[in-house]
């Protein structure tokens, strides 16, 4: 075991894993996190806590991780390189590991122009690829990048994100390969709606044997309405929602669209579950955590396995 995290154990035992995500609040109220945690608990093997996603200031991901951990959920800390240089990143890695966070997702982070502070200075001292490498070398070599010895190496199951739907398509698998070489143990994908394109991507990854080197967790997000689908397609860079998906949910009357969205999400998970090379699913029910149980249970993925 590299980290001994529950997620790592579940995957190592050959189970189809489930992760979800929890966005910390825009304020200091821990109750918001605890409330979300109650919906997550029992439904996942680990739960991502996002790091100022879309550059909107929120409670720190480390604090969020500790709060959900107190509630009995295994945390998966997301860390972006947008706001911290290598000094701060290393320090936070040590802190997170010391507090028992065993899973990490290494990200670049959305550009600050999307948030409330577009005038902020960004950092990007190292990029997400190098960040993966940094975590791995601290964990496996027990050294800082400077070569100096660590007083106790941080233990992380190392994750990265990929967006198979961003351009140029031809570089997406080579980029995943690079992330695997840098040290990624698992990867969570951008939300999948365009199954055809995703399959194409997966085939290319499999040709390189990447599914055997890295655990691929397929990302899904249930659509709440046709409006949400259209909004995401238009506003979120690199989000690929085919018209037939939008049409399917739009065909329902407004009050039935949410239900349809959940049904479609469950179908998608069931299809992913059968695909060779997919090791798990990452359910991003954005501000809709209360539906996690229904979705994950509906896909036949409950109860979650207990691995010793």
């Amino acid at each position, binding site marked *: 075991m590299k980290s001994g995290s529950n997620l790592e154990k579940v995957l190592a035992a050959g189970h189809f894993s489930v992760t979800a995500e929890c966005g910390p609040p825009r304020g200091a109220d821990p109750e918001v996190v605890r409330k979300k945690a109650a919906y997550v608990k029992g439904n996942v093997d680990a739960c991502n806590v996002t790091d100022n996603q879309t550059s909107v200031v929120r409670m720190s991901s480390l604090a969020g991780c500790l709060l959900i951990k107190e509630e009995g959920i295994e945390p998966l800390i997301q860390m972006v390189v947008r706001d911290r240089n*290598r000094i701060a990143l290393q320090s936070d890695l040590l802190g997170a590991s010391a507090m028992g966070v065993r899973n990490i997702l290494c990200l*670049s982070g959305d*550009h600050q122009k999307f948030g409330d502070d577009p005038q902020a200075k960004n950092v*990007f001292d190292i*990029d997400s690829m*190098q960040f993966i490498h940094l975590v791995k070398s601290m964990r496996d070599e027990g050294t800082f990048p400077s070569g100096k010895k660590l007083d106790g190496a941080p233990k992380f199951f190392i994750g990265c994100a990929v967006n198979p739907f961003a*351009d140029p398509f031809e570089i997406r698998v080579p980029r995943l390969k*690079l992330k695997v070489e840098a040290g990624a143990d698992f990867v969570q994908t951008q939300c999948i709606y365009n199954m055809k394109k995703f399959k194409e991507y997966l085939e290319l990854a499999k040709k390189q044997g990447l599914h055997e080197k890295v655990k691929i967790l397929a990302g899904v997000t249930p659509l709440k309405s046709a409006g949400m689908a259209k909004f995401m397609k238009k506003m979120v*860079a*690199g989000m690929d929602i085919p018209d037939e998906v939008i049409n399917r949910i739009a065909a329902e009357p407004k009050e039935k669209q949410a239900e349809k969205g959940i049904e479609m999400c469950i179908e998608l998970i069931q299809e992913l579950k059968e695909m060779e090379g997919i090791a798990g699913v990452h359910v991003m029910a954005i501000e809709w955590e209360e539906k996690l149980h229904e979705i994950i249970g509906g896909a036949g993925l409950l109860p979650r396995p207990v691995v010793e």
Partner: protein
Amino acid sequence: MITGTPKPIEEILEMLEPYDNIILAGCHGCVTVCRVGGEKEVQVLASTLRLAREAAGRKIAITEISLERQCDPEYVEKLRPYVSDHQAVLSIACGAGIQFLAEKYAITPVLPGINTGFLGVTERQGEWAERCQGCGDCVLHLTGGICPVTRCAKSLFHGPCGGSSQGICEVGKDVKCGWQLIIDRLKALNQLENYGKLKPYKGWHTSRDGGPRRILREDMI
């Protein structure tokens, strides 16, 4: 070249508030090429300022001078005979030129008349675009001649990120994704294998992050 844009006239007028006898100093270097601080711009700005101050009921005397370069001691000296007769110097050279004047004329206020921009190129008449951030350790040979530090909004060394869509960067519709450009160029050069290697963490100490920089050429001193 170093590019820049004129400061809003209101801002300049506010800076000039305490003075009624100044030098307006242009530069024949980069700022002439990008039409923001050359002889012509000196003339135009001087008359605008004079008119505005006259309208405000407080005339200002402006001596117009353009130097060959404001970043060279030899040319900066040419201003010396005039400086003591004036209350301040308004310079429309780049930030380096403005500072060099301030350094050489220690007891005369030197004011910026332009906002210095970036190291860039003239893409077409009237349009300039950034190309280099002077990071002090050039990697253009690895990236198809396109700078990841400058052309990628996140200065990624292993792009493109998940926000790259149809050649456009996530920061805005009119910003090309630098990494799409890099991939395209590497492909054209048959050098895509350069992509597949993990690049060492960038040493930003050769950039601004190492503190103000200096180049010392012993052979020339």
